């Protein structure tokens, strides 16, 4: 999920948020990722937590984990990362 795809990514997550409940994002097989894509995920998690809801990131690929660490966002997202992609 890069600068080119972050627009559609944002819209699909907004749709998921609108459904209520726990926001669950299955990231299996996703990539490549860049800071623009990570930013969308960060905004999504922040939005959901602000509504006292839970965000869960499932089957997170290594490339996403690396990006999170580079951006210093590991602490922020650690509570939401539920599993890494094998």
């Amino acid at each position: 999920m890069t600068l080119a795809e972050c627009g559609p990514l944002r819209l699909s997550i907004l749709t998921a948020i609108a459904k209520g409940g726990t926001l669950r994002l299955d990231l299996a097989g996703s990539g490549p990722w860049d800071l623009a894509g990570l930013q969308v995920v960060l905004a999504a998690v922040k939005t959901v937590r602000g509504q006292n809801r839970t965000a869960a990131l499932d089957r997170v690929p290594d490339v996403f984990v690396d990006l999170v660490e580079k951006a210093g966002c590991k602490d922020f997202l650690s509570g939401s990362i539920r599993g890494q992609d094998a």
Partner: protein
Amino acid sequence: MAHDRFLSMFFEEAQELLQALEAGLMDLEARQDDRAHLDRTFRAAHTLKGAAGMVGLTSIAGFTHDVEAILDGIRGGGLVPGAEVISTLLEAKDYLNTAVEAQARGETTTHPARLVAKLKSIAAGTHGVEESREVPRAKPQSSAMGPSEGGQNQENPGVVDPLNAVPADEGGPAISVTVLEVDAQNPPADAVVPAPLPRTGAAADPGLVRYRIEFSPNPDLLRRGVNPLGMLDELRELGQAEITPNLDRMPPLDELTPEDLHLGWTIELATSASRDRIEEVFLFLDEPGQVVIERIETRISEPSQPKPQPQPGARGKIAAPARVRVDAEQLDALIGMAGELAVLTDTLQGLHDLEGVGPWSATLESLERVGHRLRDTTLELRMVPVEELFLRFPRVVRDLAERSGKKIAVAITGEDTRLDRTIIERLSDPMIHLIRNAVDHGLETPDERADRGKPQIGTLTISASYEGDRVAIRIEDDGCGLDRAKILKKGIAAGLLPPETTFDDPRVGGVIFEPGFSTRDEVGELSGRGVGLDVVRNAIRGLRGTVTLRSVEGKGTTFLIRLPLTLAMIDGLLVESDGDRFVVPMGQVDECVAISADDPRWSMNRRALVVRGEFVPLVSLRRAMGRDEPAPHRQELLLTRHAEHRVGVAVDRLLGRVQAVTQPLAESLGDLRRYSGATILGDGSICLILDLMTLVSEAQARHTAHVATA
């Protein structure tokens, strides 16, 4: 797309940075005490690495990192730039050249494993290179720590001059980094100085300084193709970095503009690097990207002072001149239009003779003046210093000298002499030919020089200067000079000189420019195949120049190249043949001879003329243009040189001299090799510029084909 544009910009900039890197490396051994030189050389690698990272060329950035690390070690005093280190760095620079060019073509390269390993071992200090004689070897660094950084006060490593900002003209783009000095005791009202972080093991090292960096990049950073994560990585390399994202300005997802950057970071950095070095990390924020660097737990005795503006005539650094990149084709188009305008304004001068023009007379004069100034100024834009050509040669000489076991010092003068950029581009190969010639044939080995009472190190001087309306370039060596007797013997044996030619005959020196001539008995790696100097001569003639030599046996040889200042404008002869007008470059015409049909000098059924005892074959321009009408009784013969023989090109009339701004011919016009361009004459008509060399070659080819089929 924006990213493609940034990539194009990177490829342009990378070439300049690699040239600067090579120039810096060539002088590294001699200038290892010159801090400014070390910084410039380091900055070329650092800027290249950063720029590559910014446009996503992480492979090139990664390779350059190792080069940068070595240069950082050299300027920090932890590494001595001996011959092996420099050779390795030059090899790395060559590879980077190849990698960048490959990327520009859309291809990738694989880093040479041997070279990568050698760079890493040199950077780590584990390669068998010379140790620093004065500074202890740099300690092996952990992955969290960057290499030790020079630039700090060696007596008080914790003290850094707060006003020690990077000068804008020291290579690379100017940085715009706001550095605010915060008094930890009395912070400004809007500053937050949190409690000091607990010291970890590394941070407790008294040699380390702790900084807090507030990094709040502009929202458009992502759209501009700048990757701030690369800067965070670089900070990690400088020391122990704790990076915390600032998510305060992150809007809710429904308000998020995905293409904008909504993140900032707070970085706690424990490092031995100087503030300069930290600021360099943010070199690519050419907008005020708001980086606040605060030294933690430090008393700052002076508030921040604005940098004093340089006064006119003040001593110190001179601001670099502003430069603008211009597309070469657009520049040529502008020059063409300026030339047309000059011609049109010349045409308008005829209005002075009309009645009633009085009120407009001054305007016409101004128009003429401005038109000519515009033409001359735009022509001046094509002129570039020969320095960008000459800077390639020290490296060439170094490599040639290594291979031949010779010691050679290169001296360059007159590098700010300016020449048409097209000439500069086409001069590189012939000059390298001549330099190879000087190294292979001219300069002796150290032992040979010692036997002759000469210094063991030979000297090769490359110089440029103005001589009237021409530029003179000299390649001068203090080697053995030409062996005239050997040249005479070989020239006669090859049939290039008559058997009765004497030692002092002026033709003896010139015979070395003949195709296939060589005095070498064996073909060496560098030269000796006899395909060098005639190629050089033809290349320089193609630039409307001349090449001659002067040599003293035992003392040295000088090659002298004379060139016009520009190819964009030529001095020409306006000629007419069967009603058609052409411009012939004066540089291609040795002399003009008037002939009539009953001239006794005619020979071979008027296919040749005897001029001062020399048999000169003729080419009729009429016939070359496919005109069958007989030539007029009187004609003019333009004598030119073709493959060292004089040839005459017959035209009907000479109409005078012109100064012509040349315009290229469109490729869609087809095969028009006999014309080197076109120009617009004073009467507004378009006139083709003849290339006499091609015209004669075509005539020869037709004659040969005719003889073959007869």
